[in-house]
């Protein structure tokens, strides 16, 4: 069957004709994650933070195990889902939270002196070119780490922190500092949010990115102070009683307290007392000689973390970061009851992330049908999920330097493909990071996502190596592949989609596999099975549900 005609045939209506009213209900369009929309919507009935207990109406099965793995990783394989179903939710989550060894830094090129040991604070053009190339290596190394099964949750949290404590490569330029920051996120991925905030505050890349390196007594730079409060810890806004979370004056005074830090030609930074504003400051209602006077004396960060959310009665920084964790792992609009519970857990555990995630991921709320499949995949999740779930060969590993010799371009290079879909690692759009949620989906990106899926499954021959998708071995890696085409299709759908599809949607997918034949005629080893499997998978990837996780 001609692929285009198949896709058209499976569409149930003409684009310009009458469209089902389902998608135009005002509520359907408006409720969620409009840009700039921060307030929570009508609460969802999706259980609370009490521990999830498998039971007949909420079983620990393929669908729920896949949900847990999708949200905590970058697209589980069938083998990973099966292993999780055979275990318990708690064992699976505890496995994710157990420490994985830190990876070695990216390999040097051809045995040269590693680029990350060469720090030039004012790189000349030739050094900039090397840094630029090294940034490509860093992007690829990190992507390769995300593809590994061993530390998925940790790598997912590295991406979270990259999008929380944003630094853009295009300003930092000194690629070794970007690596240092990336490893800092990795080392502290599941640890103390407060400790990480302290370390980020004097992280060389951050000092450059938000101008701490030029801030000094008498002439403090407000950039980091503003974002530390607005984007990293407290969040802008007002409490229910009308008082602001913080004021412009707090920013001015905080900027004074943050003076005195400089980067040097190692990957650590240093405190220069002469540049520090040694006077009293009044910040968030407290007065004292606050500052960051050394790596263990950061009373100003303690002060920020002591602030209480007047509405929820929890630590404000905990509420703030738990809202973002909720959006990252559960759904675009935070459920503030759940967030308050997470914040309480965080405060009770000395700001540690791991207990908060353990509670969330193992909760009735997280495991509820209502939230399954309710998040839109980020480009990284989309690209890497397709690679992992379809057993594609991305051609990259963390231990070899690949980007110069794989010969892959554009959509068959994961880093580039992510960038085409608007998420270039190390290059968030601004200090607020990628807004996520529905902002990933537009008429510019969705057609690309759908076309990329088609070309990953069925590359244009002769254009490049593609990802080497092998349709027949792929389906034969699933149970029932040889014996029962209906069960095979069920497994394909469980693997690739977070949600069940209707019988009407399922029918053309089965037709694609059978191409007019009868179910008993199904044979994955038949001569024409490969193209039919590809047709089916392309149709699955064209469904709206494939954009969800």
């Amino acid at each position, binding site marked *: 069957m001609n692929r285009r005609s198949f896709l058209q045939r499976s569409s149930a209506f003409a*684009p310009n004709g009458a469209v089902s009213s389902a998608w135009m209900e005002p509520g359907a369009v408006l409720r969620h994650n409009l840009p700039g929309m921060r307030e929570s919507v009508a609460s969802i009935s999706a259980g609370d933070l009490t521990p999830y207990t498998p039971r007949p109406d909420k079983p620990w099965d393929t669908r729920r195990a896949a949900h847990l793995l999708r949200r905590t990783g970058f697209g589980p394989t069938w083998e990973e889902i099966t292993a999780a179903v055979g275990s318990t939710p708690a064992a699976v989550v505890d496995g994710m939270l157990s420490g994985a060894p830190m990876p070695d830094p990216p390999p040097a090129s051809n045995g040269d002196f590693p680029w990350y040991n060469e720090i030039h604070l004012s790189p000349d053009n030739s050094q900039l070119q090397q840094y630029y190339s090294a940034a490509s290596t860093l*992007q690829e190394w990190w992507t390769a780490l995300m593809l590994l099964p061993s530390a998925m949750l940790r790598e997912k949290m590295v991406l979270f922190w990259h999008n929380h404590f944003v630094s853009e490569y295009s300003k930092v330029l000194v690629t070794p500092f970007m690596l240092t920051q990336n490893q800092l996120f990795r080392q502290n991925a599941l640890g103390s949010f407060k400790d990480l905030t302290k370390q980020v505050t004097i992280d060389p890349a951050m000092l450059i990115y938000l*101008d701490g390196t030029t801030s000094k007594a008498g002439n403090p730079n407000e950039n980091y102070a503003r974002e530390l409060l607005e984007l990293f810890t407290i969040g802008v806004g007002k409490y229910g009683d009308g008082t602001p979370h913080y004021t412009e004056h707090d920013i001015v005074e905080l900027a004074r307290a943050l003076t005195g830090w400089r980067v040097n030609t190692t990957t650590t930074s240093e405190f220069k007392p002469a540049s520090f504003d040694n006077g009293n400051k009044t910040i968030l209602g407290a007065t004292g000689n606050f500052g960051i006077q050394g790596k263990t004396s950061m009373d100003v960060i303690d002060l920020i973390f002591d602030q209480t959310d007047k509405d929820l009665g929890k630590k404000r920084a905990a509420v703030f970061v738990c809202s973002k964790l909720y959006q990252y792992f559960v759904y675009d609009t935070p459920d503030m009851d759940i967030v308050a519970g997470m914040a309480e857990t965080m405060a009770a555990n000395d700001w540690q992330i791991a207990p908060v995630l353990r509670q969330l991921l193992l909760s009735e709320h997280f495991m509820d049908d209502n939230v399954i499949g309710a998040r839109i995949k980020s480009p990284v999740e989309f690209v890497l999920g397709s690679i992992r779930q379809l057993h594609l060969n991305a051609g990259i590993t963390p231990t070899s330097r690949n980007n110069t010799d794989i010969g892959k371009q554009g959509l068959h290079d994961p880093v580039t493909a992510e960038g085409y*879909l608007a998420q*270039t690692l190390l290059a968030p759009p601004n200090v607020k990071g990628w807004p996520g949620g529905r902002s990933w989906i537009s008429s510019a990106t969705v057609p690309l996502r759908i076309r990329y899926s088609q070309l990953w499954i069925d590359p244009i021959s002769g254009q490049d190596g593609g990802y080497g998708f092998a349709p027949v071995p792929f389906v034969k890696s699933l149970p029932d592949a040889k014996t029962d085409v209906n069960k095979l299709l069920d497994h394909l759908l469980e693997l690739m989609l977070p949600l*069940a599809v209707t019988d009407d949607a399922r029918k053309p997918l089965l037709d694609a596999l059978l191409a007019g034949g009868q179910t008993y005629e199904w044979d994955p080893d038949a001569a024409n099975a490969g193209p039919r499997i590809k047709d089916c998978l392309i149709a699955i990837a064209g469904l709206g549900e494939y954009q969800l996780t």
Partner: protein
Amino acid sequence: MRRRSFLKAALGAGALVPLASGGLWARPLHALPFTRSAAAGDRILVLINLNGGNDGLNTLVPVDDQRYYDARKVLGVAKSDTLSIAPGAGLYKVVQEIHDLYSDGTCAIVPNVGYPNQDRSHFRSTDIWNSASNSDQVITTGWTGRYLETIHPEYPATLPAAPFAVQVSSSTTLLLQGTRGGLGMAIDSPDRFFDLASGLSASNDPVPATLAGPQIDFIRRIILEADAYAAEINRAITAGKNRVDYPSGEIAPDRQGLGPQLQGVARLIDGGLPTTIYVVTLGGFDTHYAQSGIHETLLTDFSKSIKAFLADIAAGGNADRVVCMSYSEFGRRLAENNAKGTDHGAAAPQFVFGAPVLGGNLLGPMPDLGDLDSRGDVKMKIDFRQLYSTLLEDWLGFGHDDTVRVLGGSFTKLPLFRTASVESPEQSLSAGGMVRIDALAPSPASSSATLGYTLAGAARVSVTLFAGDGTRIATVLDRDQEAGAYQLPVDVRALPSGNYMVEVSAGRGRAMRWLQVVR
């Protein structure tokens, strides 16, 4: 470093057509013939977002103010590096092309634009500009989104052939969000859009009654819109031509210039895409550190790109249909910082371009550097919503009451356009208006002009004279009148030379016309 895609530059590099730069600051109103007024439905607004907070003081430089040079010992732009547009006001020479446009009468400059209680967060302030909210108010829709959904009540029940608005980006912003969903479409590469989007389809199977349901609906809607608009966009991009060269767009790593974006917009306009609003973005204006060099690069790109765009639009015969406005979330602090940069400030100048624009005008005084706000920032004198209300009413022909509703209040309009707010006398009356202006002559006038107007019915009539910056000068008339034609003398002997606006309001109807005074 692997980057995201850039727009393809359809044309190779080439020299821009050199145009003489005039250097005149008092541009006579009659220097250019009045342009034919395009019907409101054909008019196009291009919004140019200078993201990050453009340093207005180093764009439109207060060249005779020593306080500026005292505060900017490193970054101050010398008077000799500026092109004069008015006494004490010089455009930084890196925006030479904007100066050309100003001299040619197709660029108006509005200084000191902002809003009360400036928010210095990029994100909040950008939201404020996009939503047209007050500083302390969160509105989750955009001003253009609300405008578009008002004039298209059928949307989204019926999809149009072409999008109402196009944002040249991988995503749309709050600006184009309406109460019934997004009114705009993101296209980051018009010339390949058809290949990508054409033939896509989405099912209309029922969705689950969970949080995933609305997400599926949303994704399906975007797929359908992409497919539905693909043919029309392809038709326009195929039929459309660019007739001038544009800047290449590769201005810095990960920084896309305006040239290719505006080039794509020009081609869609030339190809006849019936889209009202286009949005392009130039980022990188957050120059806290080492501003010198970066800022010049960005301003140069802005200046060369806008000039190329307007030349292209004119060459295609669309000059009377297209108006552009710049906006940026805030200006920057007068005092430079310790890092050879500038921090977040408040009010700043914005630019309005196009043949229909009453150009060669600086719509207000230069910033008063002796009267800064508590942070040492330029105070707002013109509310950004004055620009919006002028664009909506006087350019897009949006009704006054609707404009007040969309902007959440009434904001005094600015004399930005050569033509009055109504297309023609006939339309004014037939559209439910109460009044039309028949004549205002002579213009230029030196002692007196005569205003002729016609009332459709009995009404309270007021005739008001405004200065070029929108300041109310005098009420010429305020009384009840019966239907009929009237002649009213307007005494201008006390007025300095310049451009003035005469407004006649009668009940809910309003009409305006420009009057030039020469001494």
